[in-house]
C-alpha cells in the first residue's frame, strides 16, 4: 500500500521542484539574508491570523476565568472579577452541559460519517460521468453548498412544516400498509418535527449533510483526477472488482485528501449554529441546545454572562483541538513511515 503511493507521488513531482530550485541563486538580489526571506514572507499572514484569530481566542480564554457582564466590556469598562475556575465548575455542574455535549457529539459523529460517505460516492459518480453531465451535476450540487446556512435552514424548516410541509404530505401519499410497516403509523398530518430534540436533530442532520456533501464530492473528484489511469487499467487487467479497486487503489491514494476532509468536517459539524438556531426556533428549547447554541444563549440573552459563555466555548474548542490533534498526529506519523 505504502509503496504504490510513493511511486505515484515521487513520479509526479520530485524532479520538477529540484530543477526550479537550482535557478534560484541568481534571483537573490534583495539584500536580505537567506534565512530571513521565508519569515518575511510569512509575516503578513501571521499578522492577519494573530489579529483576527489569536487575539480574540486569547480574549475568550481570558474572559472564561472572569465574571464578565455588560459593565465589563463597555467602552469605559469596569474591572472584571477574577473567578479562577468557577465558570468551568459551573459549566460541568449544569445539566445543560451534558445534554448539549451529548447532542453535539452525536450530531457530529453521524453527520461527519454521512457527509464523507455520501460525498465520496457522489465524487466517484462524477468521475464516471461524461464531461457535460459532470459539469451539470457539479453546478447543481455546488448551488446547495453555496446556499447561505440561514437560507438552508429556512428551506428545510418549511419542508418539514407540520401542516403545510412537503414531507408530511409525501409521507401521507405512501400506501397505508407500507407506511404502517415502516414507521408504525399511516397518518402524518400535523406531525410536528421541530418540537422534540431527536426530530430536530434528524432534520438538522439532513440539512447539514445536504449543504456540505458537495464540497467533499468535488474535493474527492479533484483527487481522483490526479490518480494515473494506468493503475486502474492494471487493476482491470488483473480482474479486480470495483470495491476492491476502491479499497486497494483509490482509498490509499486519496488518504491525504480524506484526512483533511475529515478534520474539516469534524470542525464544521462540531460548531454548527445557524441551522440549529433557526430550526429550533430561537433559544427557548433548551433540550435541543448544542454547545455553541448554549454558549450563545448564556453569553447574549439577558442578563449576559459572557464569562460563562466563554467557558463553554473554550471547552468546545478544546474538544475540537484534541480530536484534530490526535488525528493530525496520526497523519504525520503515517507520512513519516513513508
Amino acid at each position, binding site marked *: 500500500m505504502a509503496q504504490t503511493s510513493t511511486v505515484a507521488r515521487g513520479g509526479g513531482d520530485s524532479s520538477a521542484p529540484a530543477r526550479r530550485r537550482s535557478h534560484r541563486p541568481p534571483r537573490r538580489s534583495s539584500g536580505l539574508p537567506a534565512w530571513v526571506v521565508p519569515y518575511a514572507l510569512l509575516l503578513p499572514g501571521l499578522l492577519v491570523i494573530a489579529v483576527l484569530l489569536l487575539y480574540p481566542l486569547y480574549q475568550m480564554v481570558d474572559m472564561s476565568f472572569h465574571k464578565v457582564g455588560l459593565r465589563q466590556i463597555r467602552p469605559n469598562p469596569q*474591572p472584571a472579577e477574577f473567578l479562577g475556575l468557577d465558570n468551568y465548575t459551573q459549566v460541568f455542574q449544569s445539566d445543560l452541559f451534558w445534554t448539549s455535549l451529548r447532542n453535539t457529539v452525536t450530531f457530529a459523529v453521524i453527520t461527519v460519517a454521512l457527509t464523507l460517505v455520501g460525498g465520496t460516492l457522489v465524487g466517484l459518480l462524477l468521475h464516471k460521468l461524461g464531461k457535460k453531465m459532470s459539469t451539470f451535476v457539479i453546478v447543481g450540487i455546488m448551488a446547495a453548498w453555496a446556499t447561505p446556512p440561514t437560507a438552508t435552514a429556512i428551506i428545510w424548516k418549511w419542508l418539514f412544516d407540520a401542516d403545510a410541509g412537503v414531507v408530511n404530505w409525501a409521507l401521507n401519499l405512501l400506501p397505508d400498509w407500507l407506511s404502517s410497516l415502516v414507521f408504525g403509523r399511516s397518518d402524518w398530518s400535523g406531525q410536528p418535527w421541530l418540537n422534540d430534540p431527536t426530530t430536530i436533530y434528524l432534520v438538522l442532520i439532513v440539512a447539514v449533510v445536504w449543504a456540505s456533501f458537495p464540497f467533499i464530492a468535488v474535493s474527492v473528484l479533484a483527487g481522483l483526477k490526479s490518480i494515473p489511469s494506468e493503475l486502474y487499467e492494471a487493476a482491470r487487467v488483473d480482474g479486480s472488482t470495483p470495491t476492491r479497486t476502491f479499497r486497494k487503489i483509490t482509498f490509499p491514494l486519496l488518504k491525504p485528501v480524506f484526512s483533511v476532509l475529515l478534520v474539516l468536517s469534524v470542525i464544521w459539524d462540531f460548531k454548527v*449554529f445557524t441551522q440549529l438556531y433557526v430550526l429550533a426556533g430561537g433559544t*427557548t428549547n*433548551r433540550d435541543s441546545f448544542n454547545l455553541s447554541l448554549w454558549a450563545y444563549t448564556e453569553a447574549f440573552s439577558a442578563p449576559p454572562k459572557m464569562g460563562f459563555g466563554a467557558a463553554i466555548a473554550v471547552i468546545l474548542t478544546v474538544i475540537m483541538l484534541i480530536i484534530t490533534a490526535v488525528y493530525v498526529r496520526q497523519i504525520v506519523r503515517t507520512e513519516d513511515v513513508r
Partner: protein
Amino acid sequence: MKFGKIAAATATTTALAIGVAACGSGEPAKTADPQASAAASGPKYAGQTLNVWRLGAPNDVQNKYMADLDAKFKEQTGAEVNVQWIPWPDAQKKWTAALAGGEGPDVTEFGNDQVAAWVSQDALTDISDLVKSSPDFQQIPQNLWGYETIDSKVYAAPWGGGTRAVLYRKDWFKSLGIEVPKTWEELVAAGKKIVEKKGKDVDGFAFNGGSDANMSLSPFVWSAGGDFAAFEGGKWVGKLTDPAFKEGFQFYTDLVAKSGVSGKSRLSQNSVDISQRFAAGKVGMYVTGGWDIATIKEQSKGKVSEDQMAFFSLPNKEGSGPAPAFQGGNDIAIWKDAKSPELAAEYLKLAAGKEYGTRYAKEGGLLPLYPDALAEFASDPVQAPFAETFKVAKGFPASPNWAEANDTKAVLQNAARSVIEGKKDADTALADANKELETILNQQ
C-alpha cells in the same frame, strides 16, 4: 483586566452574524464630538444626527408619526433623526450588542418592565432633573413613574401605557356564530369551533411558548389567584407549586395538549410569529397589545382589515370580570453612551411631551398617560378592553434576575413544553421549574 473594544466586537460577532446585524451596519461614520456651541445663528444642533431606536414593526401610522415628530424636532434643533426599528423579541440582544460594541442609540424606546434590569447594567442616563423641570412631565400622574424610578432617580419617561388583551377575528366570530367568551370554558369552546371550521392548521387560540410566553401565560395564573414568586423574608420564594398557579398553568398547556385549540407543532412561537400567522389568516385569537392591529393590517396586504379584528379582555375563570394581565407600557430613555446627551434630552422632551406623547399612545394603540387624554379613551370601543384590564393589571417579579428566568433559561416555556409533550406531569414540571426559578432569582 481591561477588555478592549476589539474583544467586545468579536464577542458580539455571533449575535451580529445571524441577522441581528442591522446595528453594526448603521455606521454613518459620525466623528462629530458634540459641538453644542458651534453655530451662532440658526438652530443650535444643525448638522448633527440623533440615532433613535423604536421597538416593534413599523407600519404606516407609526411611520407618519415618526416623520411628523422628526420634522418638528429638526425645526426646533436643526438636527436630523435616524430611526431604526427593532422587533420586540430582538430588543434585549440588540441592547446587549449596543452596550458591548459602543455603537448604540442616543434615544431608545423601552419596555417599562425592563428599565430596572438595564439600569443595573448602567445602560441609561439619569433624567431626574429634566423630568422635574418639564411642565409637561409634571402632569403625568406620580403612580405611573414606578417602573422608571430606581433609588429615587428617574431613568426613563413613560410614553404610553399598555396591557394585553385578546385580539380576535371579529368576522370569524360572526360567521361562526361565536359570542365573545365570558369564561375560560367559553374561550376553549370558541377556539375548538374555529379549529373545526377553519382547518386543522389554524390556531383557535394561539399558544405562545417563545421568548415572551409569560405575557400570555400570566393572565391565566393570576386570574386563578397564583403568582410566579414572592419576596418573603429577604429572599425570593417560588410560588409555581401553588395549586392556584398550577390551575392556570394546566389550563394554558391544555390549550395545546387536551383541547387542541393551538397546533402542537408551534410550541416555540412568540407573539411576533403569531401575529404573522394571524395576518395570514391562521389564527383566531391570541394575547397581545393594541399595537398589533395596524401591523397585521399592513402585513396581510389587505386580507385582514381593521374591521375584521377586535379585542376583548381575557375573562377570569368564572366570568365575573377581566383576568389581570401584564401591566406593561413603553418608555423613552436616553442611552448612557449617547453622543450628545443634551440633544437627546431635547428629543425626549418633545417626544414624550403632551402633544407627541399623547399622539404616540393613541396612534400606537396604547393608553395615553396624560389624564385628560386618558379620560377620552374609556369610551373608545377599540381601547375600552385595555382601559378595563389596566385597572387590574399586575407585574412580574421585580428582580433584575427575572430576565434570566424568562429569557436565558426560559424556565416556564420549557416546563410547558415538557408537559405538552407528555414527558412530565404538571406537578413534576412545576416542582422542577420552581426550584430552578428560586435559584435564579436568589443568585447574586
